[in-house]
């Protein structure tokens, strides 16, 4: 540690540049990870808020809530407890004169079932009548207010905003919670269908209808349109970035070590153990990577404060901590690569001919 700190103190410019490079790498990885997490959570925020374990859908719906319908006939074969809730999904365009039109997911729910009961509102009240809606806060950012009247698609019916809810997103669209009867009306189903699916907090929930099938939450989420492809893309991007970081950091540390071999040869000639020099190299790498990581974290936090709400970013501390730990490990691996050079440094090389 003594050697590494003294070298950093003496060679401020050189090490500042290296730390700057590590800061940029950390910042890039953190921002990309946060964007990936943000986009990923915008697919599933609403689903996560229900704390569901399984969902019952029509078995021919390809695990898609929007393609599934449960009919009145099937209702007789379904038994619901307080852990189940019927849900009806419809894609809508919400509009109010003078405000931006919003593509949204209308989710019809029953006010007596757990989804409606468990909704955590940021303002307003829960559903207590028809033509009332609780909407995602994104609408608020776009100028929508409590008691405003919304219209969906080409319908003439007005829906009153009675509450706002945070992080209610499904498939990247903001969610509009309304009564299940309003969902039937929006879908023009004439009362023949009771919902799109049944959400359950019980992972073993089933019905007696052979046309209906229970899917786990992970199966359901993975079939959300574009979700798996998008996540895989981000995972590969971040993975490749980590590998490239490893190579870049390793190359820098390798060059640094090569530049120090003459000094190390002098120290080896004096009898300074190779272990001391190896420790100095590894501790220096850890100091550099952790410094870069801390500054990168501060930059990311500042970015989080100033980034517009429209940009989906999610700062998941456990995941970002894992990424940070990965970067420190990357630095240590980078420092370990030139260790063989240090162990084999020849003190004779510094004694003249």
């Amino acid at each position, binding site marked *: 540690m003594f050697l590494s700190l003294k070298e950093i103190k003496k060679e401020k410019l050189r090490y500042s540049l290296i730390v700057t490079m590590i800061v940029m790498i950390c910042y890039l990885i953190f921002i990309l990870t946060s964007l990936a997490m943000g986009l990923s959570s915008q697919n599933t925020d609403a689903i996560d808020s229900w704390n569901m374990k399984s969902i019952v859908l029509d078995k021919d719906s390809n695990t898609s809530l929007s393609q599934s319908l449960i009919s009145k006939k099937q209702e007789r074969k379904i038994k619901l407890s307080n852990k189940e809730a019927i849900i009806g999904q419809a894609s809508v365009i919400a509009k109010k004169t003078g405000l931006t039109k919003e593509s949204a997911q209308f989710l019809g729910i029953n006010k007596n079932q757990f989804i409606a009961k468990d909704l955590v509102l940021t303002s307003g009240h829960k559903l207590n009548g028809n033509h009332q809606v609780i909407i995602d806060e994104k609408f608020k950012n776009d100028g929508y207010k409590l008691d405003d009247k919304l219209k969906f698609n080409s319908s003439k019916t007005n829906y009153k905003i009675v509450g706002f809810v945070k992080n209610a997103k499904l498939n990247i669209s903001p969610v509009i919670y309304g009564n299940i009867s309003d969902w039937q009306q929006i879908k023009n189903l004439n009362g023949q269908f009771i919902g799109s699916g049944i959400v359950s907090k019980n992972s073993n929930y089933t019905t007696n209808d052979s046309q209906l099938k229970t899917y786990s939450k992970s199966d359901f989420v993975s079939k959300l349109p574009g979700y798996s492809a998008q996540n895989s893309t981000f995972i590969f991007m971040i993975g490749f970035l980590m590998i490239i970081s490893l190579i870049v950091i390793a190359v820098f540390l390798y060059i640094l070590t090569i530049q120090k071999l003459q000094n190390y040869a002098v*120290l080896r000639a004096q*009898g300074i153990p190779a272990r001391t020099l190896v420790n100095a190299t590894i501790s220096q790498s850890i100091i550099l990577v952790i410094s870069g990581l801390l500054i990168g974290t501060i930059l990311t936090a500042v970015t989080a404060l100033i980034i517009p709400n429209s940009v989906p970013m999610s700062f998941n501390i456990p995941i970002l901590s894992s990424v940070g730990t990965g970067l420190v490990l990357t630095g240590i691996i980078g420092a370990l690569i030139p260790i063989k050079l240090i162990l084999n440094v020849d003190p004779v090389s510094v004694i003249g*001919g």
Partner: protein
Amino acid sequence: MTTLQLNNINKFFGTGTSRVHVLNNINFSAQKGEVNLVIGPSGSGKSTFLTIAGGLQTPSTGSVELDGNKLSSLSKKQRDALRLNKIGFILQAYNLIPYLTVTEQFKLVKKIKKENNLDDQELENLMKQLGISELTNKYPNELSGGQSQRVAIARALYTKPDIILADEPTAALDSKRVIEVGKLFQALAKEQNIAVIVVTHDLRLIDYADNVYEIMDGQMRLNNDLKKKVG
């Protein structure tokens, strides 16, 4: 008392037709309390002699004993410890760590060898004697060649070694400093009972040597007559 003994040392580099016989059946012993000068031109094998004497390389044949320890029987770690505790190396070039101040050069050694080094007062006296007491907070790039070499000498003496192995220690020094370094080696040998071995071109050090060896084409011989001629 013999502290360093080299017996029938041969050193070859390369193989086949490119094989070079660098040291040819060298026998050498250094006594505590004596300054030994090894003089020879470039390529004569004097640096190879020094590195073998200091356990930095192994001879092709023959044996090296330091204070009764056969170096060939020691592990790499034990040879490191021996160098740290018993040998003070003074090297011609790259002799100081560029990112450590003069004081920190000693601190580094103290971090590894925690005991039996010069105490603060002794170090201060040594630095005064070498004319470097004002340089404690300077980095090597702020020192002249002569100052750097004197700091390197002080660093080698800091561990209170039994033997000093010096490679051209006066190469960058003016005549006045050469006399001081010569006197310092002499004093160290006599007062602290250290064996000093200096390989050099510098005949100005002859006056301070007890023994002068000539090395030429890998062969070494004692030639104290040189003292009379040069002196």
